[in-house]
């Protein structure tokens, strides 16, 4: 088809040269991409490599390999000084899991109502939902702190978890609304004829079909909770409550040149769950990003 069109069309005088070998063009393209990837990911790879070097060799080389690879940075970093990374990892996982569950429940019920039900006030409420997607979080930062302080929630995990049970992540709701809207309505209608109420349609029909969207929400929920720094910084003063980011910050504050190995080791461990989950679920996630603009 393409070739016949080109054969009939007069060749452009100043047109692009078509004579370049397609194999060479593909090779050049791949080479450019690999160059970009090396520049992009080298700092990360270098950090992982440095975490396996003896601590006196961390900054001595640009290269990746060491004659004396060691796990000492991991064992020392895990409990360096007054730090206790076993605790921080447990705390971070606990907060992340409870946030994910809260997000999944609150966002999916909200999304079902917006995507499938008709009710007075729907347009107004949906506009409000979209509006909160653009709202800078700073505007609720101070009053929420005052409120949680008043409730005695400082130095508890409640300020980091409870909001997720009330659907504060408008992006997640929006993503699920879009997904549920794309599901065929005939399924609901036939379930309704069989006598199903809205709750059963939601749990038995919509939720099983919305698993891809649920997966995207769960993974981004995990990433955001795991990376969150400002929330724990505000609400978790006691060191036994700290999350991994707070542990890393304390590590960075307290270290001299000598223990950067430990810092790199703990940083590597802190990134591993995110990158690991992402690679396991990458197809699902990249579709989600492409269609909704999450990051």
């Amino acid at each position, binding site marked *: 088809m393409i070739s016949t069109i080109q054969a009939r069309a007069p060749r452009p005088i100043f047109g692009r040269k078509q004579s370049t070998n397609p194999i060479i063009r593909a090779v050049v393209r791949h080479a450019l991409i690999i160059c970009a990837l090396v520049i992009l990911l080298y700092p990360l790879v270098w950090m992982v490599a440095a975490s396996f070097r003896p601590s006196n060799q961390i900054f001595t080389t640009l290269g990746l390999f060491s004659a004396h690879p060691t796990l000492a940075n991991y064992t020392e970093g895990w409990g360096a000084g007054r730090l206790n990374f076993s605790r921080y990892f447990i705390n971070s996982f606990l907060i992340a899991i409870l946030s994910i569950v809260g997000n999944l429940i609150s966002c999916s019920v909200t999304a079902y109502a917006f995507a499938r039900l008709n*009710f007075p006030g729907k347009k107004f*409420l949906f506009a409000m939902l979209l509006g909160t997607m653009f709202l800078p979080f700073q505007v609720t*930062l101070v009053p929420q702190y005052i409120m949680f302080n008043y409730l005695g929630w400082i130095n508890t995990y409640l300020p980091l978890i409870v909001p997720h049970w009330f659907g504060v992540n408008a992006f997640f709701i929006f993503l699920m609304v879009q997904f549920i809207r794309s599901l065929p309505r005939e399924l609901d209608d036939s379930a309704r004829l069989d006598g199903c109420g809205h709750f059963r349609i939601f749990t038995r029909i919509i939720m099983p079909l919305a698993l891809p969207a649920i997966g995207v929400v769960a993974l981004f929920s995990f990433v955001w909770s795991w990376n969150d720094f400002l929330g724990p910084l505000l609400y978790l003063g006691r060191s036994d409550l700290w999350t991994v980011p707070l542990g890393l910050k304390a590590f960075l504050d307290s270290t001299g040149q000598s223990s950067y190995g430990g810092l790199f080791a703990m940083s590597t461990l802190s990134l591993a769950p995110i990158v690991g989950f992402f690679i396991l679920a*990458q197809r699902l996630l*990249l579709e989600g990003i492409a269609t909704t*603009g999450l990051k």
Partner: protein
Amino acid sequence: MTSGTTPQQTLTKTSAGSEATPRQLRWRSRRARETIAAYVFLTPWILGMVLLTLGPMLYSLYLSFTRYNLLSDPKWVGFANFVQMFTADSRFLKSVGVTLVYVLVSVPLLLVVSMLLALLLNKSMRFLTAYRVLFYVPSLIGASVAIAALWRLIFGADGIINQVLAVVGIHHDSSWVGSPHDALTTLIILAVWAFGSMMIIFLAGVRQVPRELYEAAAIDGAGVFRKFFSVTLPILTPLIFFNTLMATIGAFQAFTGAYVVSGGTGGPVDSTLFYTLYLYQQGFAQLNMGYAAAMAWLLVIVLAAVTGFFFWTARFWVHYGDE
């Protein structure tokens, strides 16, 4: 939306005026049930909206006209906080400047870099899945403390950036993050480093450009650049609009990188004092919560204006498929 209920609606209209038939009653009760169900489903979200978003917003609007330190009652001061920002607080003005430079440099760079790589990947090529995953990884972790800490070290005096520069013959021995001229640059690089999510969105867009358009352009003798500017770019304008808006809003709110790289100070010499970092210092280090609330509301107003401006300009440069 209403496709499921349309037949019943027509039915009610035709029999309007007469006594309610059993059918109508059933339909009304179904509507009532649906409304009740909807509001039951929406209960958590509405509670969150009122208690965690709208209520706090109104409260912080009130606080922005007060002086409040959490210990004694808020004291009404009128517009004093806002006046102080622009007349008596050089650090505030500095933080506005730093944030504007950050937004105005990092967002265009992000757009250009992610667009270029999306075009480079726009082929049904081998390893495409692996490439997409690898380009996306920095977006996942770019906002983490671990990466900010890494940035602080690799841009230090003996970090690998200086070592790489030495290899190519540029001798830069001082620390980048320690220099008032360069510290902000390292944070801009950090922002651009995480371009993957934007690239994925552009990639999804360029892959949907109809092939026939390129073929038609080729027949007309268009070269690579002409094809890009006359075919690809116009089709991508809705995505460029979306990406620019979201990146701008995000950049105004950046915090973690600046906090970690500067050790919480915004230094050296306030050169990385992002707006949000200064708001944090005012509100939670110095407990000037009224002042912090005023800063937050100013940001809301500025972002609303920026968003409104974006939507207004959209009519001049954003093309949708049917035009």
